[in-house]
């Protein structure tokens, strides 16, 4: 081309972050985003590796060519697109129509499909600059146009022409208040997807199968969440500089996140729990000592608070705020000490998150020990069935017959049944979930795990680029995994055991499609069929047998009687003595 002599552009390179971002984000994070991190001096960086959260929102990456566009007319407001979005770029809100007075002209809105919210408005909004264009939302959308083939309530359109308009809409959408958490169900997909996610715009792959689970976690419990994260994909999209997807709500609360190592994550998270519990014990001790100046009503309220529900937690937070106010006026060592640990009086949730490389292999002994500890921690295994972060090497979660690095001839042995290992303890809550095979089931498992006052383990089927297919169909494959019986949906709830029932619940139906119909959609299986058809046939046959065997074990376990339905031998005491 012929280069004109004059510089004539009327626009310039965008600043890495907007001017309204916080100072640290502008000066440090922004410099790194701009690729100038090398120029940062020592003094610019935190002394101890501590970074602020809520920073991914400032990093507008604009990587999607196409973004989803909402058809408000067609939408049934089921919330599925919101739930499966790996990057939290589709969100739903219900709000007062009065708030629409300042809305941008193209801002879309609809009548809510909740009878009780009929007087309010509903909007499904996309963040155009944060979307990766993965299409999971479109594929999961159940609302199809009767007149126009392929047209759904969510459809992909070119991003560039929409960017400016939808960015303005997104900003406006964010300015709308969050809906009252106490007015909606926390177990239904539709309702939970009105809850604010505190995990957004991560650097995970487009269509990632892991991040929707983490996002759900933050929607449900984000403002009281401590996350111990094993090294792996989830620690990289979770905590790789320059930004982190973990964010805060309007009160400034949100997940506190840390990564220790690959091999120690369960123990690391247990340590968090030990600390929280110990601080609560200490705080209770100090409350007793200070009950005079603090007043019996407050102290009793704080000590005996029922925090099993969110309303109780909220009330306790108010008490703690009152407590802090009073403590500020007391000049004593005890008061100062209590001030430092007062937050421990509010219920906190520890979730220990990592992949199968951690849970099945390098951290297995620690995971097992933490499950055996009986402590109230929750472990979430994002099971991609390979070491995703290092490039797809075999783990003990890798299924028989699939090809992975280090298993180039196909994995010769069956996947380890981690759920059954954990179930053997009897007091561990265990669930196998697959969002694409049962989204309500997934939410139920998260809630039950959180409610269980003891260790919980959720093994979450996570589709992955390492599986070798278009991840836009990831949730479809999850569904196939469940239909084939390869991934039965299971919940083992010790609470049922205590209630005299069989704690083992098999929540999916018997296999209705052969394993091949699920597996052979994925290159990790089919590549073996091409390179070594005979081995592939034999491994597939054995893998089908694994599935059937597993189903027999699970279904018989689910059919077992509970404690209330079995006889209990009673010690017989003979008359006239206690025996020898």
């Amino acid at each position, binding site marked *: 081309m012929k280069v004109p002599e004059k510089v004539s552009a009327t626009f310039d390179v965008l600043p890495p972050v907007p001017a309204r971002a916080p100072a640290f984000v502008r000066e440090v994070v922004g410099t790194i985003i701009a690729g100038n991190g090398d120029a940062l001096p020592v003094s610019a960086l935190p*002394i*101890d590796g501590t970074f602020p959260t809520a920073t991914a929102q400032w990093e507008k990456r604009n990587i999607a060519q196409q973004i989803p566009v909402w058809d408000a007319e067609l939408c049934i407001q089921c919330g599925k697109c919101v739930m499966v979005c790996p990057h939290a770029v589709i969100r739903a809100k219900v709000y007062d129509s009065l708030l629409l007075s300042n809305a941008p002209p193209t801002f879309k809105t609809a009548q809510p499909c909740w009878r009780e919210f009929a007087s309010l408005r509903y909007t499904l909004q996309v963040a155009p600059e944060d979307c990766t264009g993965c299409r999971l939302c479109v594929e999961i959308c159940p609302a199809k146009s009767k007149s126009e083939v392929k047209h759904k309530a969510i459809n992909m359109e070119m991003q560039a022409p929409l960017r400016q308009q939808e960015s303005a809409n997104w900003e406006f959408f964010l300015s709308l208040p969050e809906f009252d958490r106490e007015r909606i169900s926390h177990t239904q997909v539709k309702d939970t997807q009105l809850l604010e996610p505190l995990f957004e715009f991560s650097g995970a792959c487009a269509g990632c199968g892991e991040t929707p689970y983490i996002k759900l976690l933050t929607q449900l419990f984000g403002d009281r969440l401590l996350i111990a994260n094993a090294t792996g994909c989830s620690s990289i999209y979770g905590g790789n500089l320059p930004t982190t997807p973990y964010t805060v709500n309007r009160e400034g609360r*949100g997940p506190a996140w840390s990564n*220790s190592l690959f091999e120690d994550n369960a123990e690391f998270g247990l340590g968090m729990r030990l600390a929280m519990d110990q*601080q609560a014990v200490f705080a209770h001790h100090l409350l007793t000592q200070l009950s005079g100046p603090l007043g019996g009503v407050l102290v009793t309220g704080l000590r005996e608070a029922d925090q099993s529900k969110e309303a109780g937690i909220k009330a306790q937070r108010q008490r703690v705020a009152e407590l802090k106010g009073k403590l500020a006026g007391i000049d004593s060592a005890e008061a100062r000490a209590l001030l430092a640990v007062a937050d421990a009086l509010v219920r906190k949730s520890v979730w220990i998150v990592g992949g199968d490389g951690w849970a099945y292999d390098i951290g297995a002994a620690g995971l097992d020990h933490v499950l055996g500890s009986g402590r109230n921690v929750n472990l979430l295994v994002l099971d991609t069935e390979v070491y995703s972060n290092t490039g797809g090497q075999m783990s003990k979660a890798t299924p028989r017959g699939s090809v992975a690095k280090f298993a180039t001839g196909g994995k010769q042995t069956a996947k380890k049944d981690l759920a059954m290992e954990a179930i053997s303890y009897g007091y561990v809550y265990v669930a196998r979930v697959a969002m694409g095979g049962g989204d309500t089931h997934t939410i139920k498992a998260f809630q039950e795990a959180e409610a269980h006052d003891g260790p919980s383990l959720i093994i979450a089927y996570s589709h992955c680029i390492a599986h070798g297919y278009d991840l836009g169909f990831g949730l479809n494959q999850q569904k196939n995994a469940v239909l084939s019986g390869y991934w039965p949906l299971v919940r083992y709830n010790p609470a049922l055991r205590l209630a005299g029932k069989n704690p083992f619940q098999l929540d999916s139906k018997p296999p209705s499609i052969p394993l091949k119909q699920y597996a052979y959609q994925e290159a990790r299986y089919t590549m073996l069929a091409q390179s070594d058809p005979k081995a592939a046939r034999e491994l597939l046959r054995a893998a089908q047998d694994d599935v059937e065997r597993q189903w027999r074990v699970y279904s018989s376990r689910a059919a077992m009687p509970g404690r209330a339905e079995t006889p209990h031998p009673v010690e017989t005491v003979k008359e006239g003595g206690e025996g020898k």
Partner: protein
Amino acid sequence: MDRVPIILDGNEAAASVAYRLSEVIAIYPITPSSPMGEWADQWRSEGKKNIWGAVPDVVEMQSEGGAAGALHGALETGVLGTTFTASQGLLLMIPNMFKIAGELTAAVIHVAARTVATHALSIFGDHSDVMAARSTGFAMLASNSVQEAHDLALIAHAATLESRIPFLHFFDGFRTSHEVNKIIPLLDEDLRAIVDERFVRQHRERALSPDRPVLRGSAQNPDVFFQAREAANPFYRACPQIVQDVMDRFAKQTGRGYHLFDYVGAPDAERVVMLMGSGAGAAGECLNALEKAGEKVGLLKVRLYKPFALEAFFAALPATVCGIAVLDRTKEPGSVGEPLYQDIVTAFMERQAANGARPMPRIIGGRYGLSSKEFTPAMVKAVFDELKKPEPQNHFTIGIRDDVTHTSLDYDRAFSTEDPRTVRALFYGLGSDGTVGANKNSIKIIGKGTNNYAQGYFVYDSKKAGAITVSHVRFGPEQIASTYLISQASFVACHQFPFIDRIDVLSAAEPGATFLLNAPFGQEEIWSHLPRQVQTNHHRQEAQILSDRCLRRGAGSGHGQPHQHHHANMLFRHQRRSARGEAIAAIKQAIQETYGKRGEAVVQKNFAAVDQALSHLHQ
């Protein structure tokens, strides 16, 4: 306040402070550090409180890697935490130690330093484990005795909170961890006086919390990792002075002064030996002897090994020094020299490069004491003597005979610094026959009940049952820092007659020693049952034989562990200050304390054994 001395071993001494200054304690057993975790667990079960009035949580993990991980998680969440380990266990903690230090997290790991397995496993003591952890960023503080394991534990806990540098506090496995000695205890009020509450609060306020969330453990790229790593420098620079300030506060509170480098010896010393750990006890005794003989020698004890404080080091060392022997209790094959030696050489070379006017002293390095190899004043003397030579051997070994690469120095085995006023007793027994327990009780009785100092060290072989135990017990009017086995005993007791044929139990008896033999014969028959070598030694040392037939009588009284009474004998012969009646009462009280939890019947059997033994003692 008057502090009543107590008798305990190094593990209990360290654990007692660590427990009272912790909220979460993650534990995992490994010899020789396990008793620290066991004490913590026991104290928790008894409801013993830390100095803030809460009972710490003590949690056993599935490995030391797990213990370190749990500790890391607990510390990040704002509690005060500690753990105890050694050897392979410390190696498993290293990955987390890097992170704990990198995040400037206050913590103390107490280590009963033990050999790392190489060509063989060894449960015994040396510094190969702690030296393997020296790049983690932990500060490293060395204790040389039971008292110091107690004192420096507190200094470590206080200094870590103030400096934000985590501390590895170590003392020698077995030689200190399992040595029983008389110490002045630190009371809760001492702990409160030394630990500054401001820094405790700051530690709590740095807690990870969803109420004010932050992110830790990020992954960083080449653009900023390096700069961020250098950002912690000011904390490492400030750390030594903080430690010294804490030591100074400690001295005011307790009267016991410590320094980053403690120098003892001639102010105009020409030759200096440097080391850390229990070897300082033996070296100190040697130093005293040489100084009395007019030699210009000194001993430099390294307490704060990391961060290495150059200025304090040079300030502690007399300017007159022209020869330094740096002793390392570890081996790093293939290196230029062992770690402490290399640090000292570097320190001098840096000073020389900056200020060439000063003459460099001659510096040699040597290895000693691997796997609890004996380290005696005689060996220290050989090292001082080596420094006198015009061409002293560098990279020497001391305490072994190396006839392959000829690294070893010769030493004079007859050189002894034993204090004649110190009673030195050896007891030969069988594991589980009560000898060791009874000796520990005797030490408690002597240490608590009199003004005497007392020390006990117990050597076991590795048989799971029927192990031979040799108890090395010293007591006397002066503080006992003899960190080596007794080779000149004034009292030898053999509790198992069958040993007579297998072990030369009088080989370590000094002339005129008393020999107490538990024999199944009458006194007229005994001599004919002693083997030739024992009879010869007996004649040479002019020992007196005391015998008794407690095995028979023990059986008669239904009591199979007849050893308390030997201690009564020993007490009467060697500690005449104590009236017989008082001693008996003290023994019985000790029996009550030791065996009380096993039931009254056991206590009464032991009482009976004491009474019977006294009435059947023959000379």
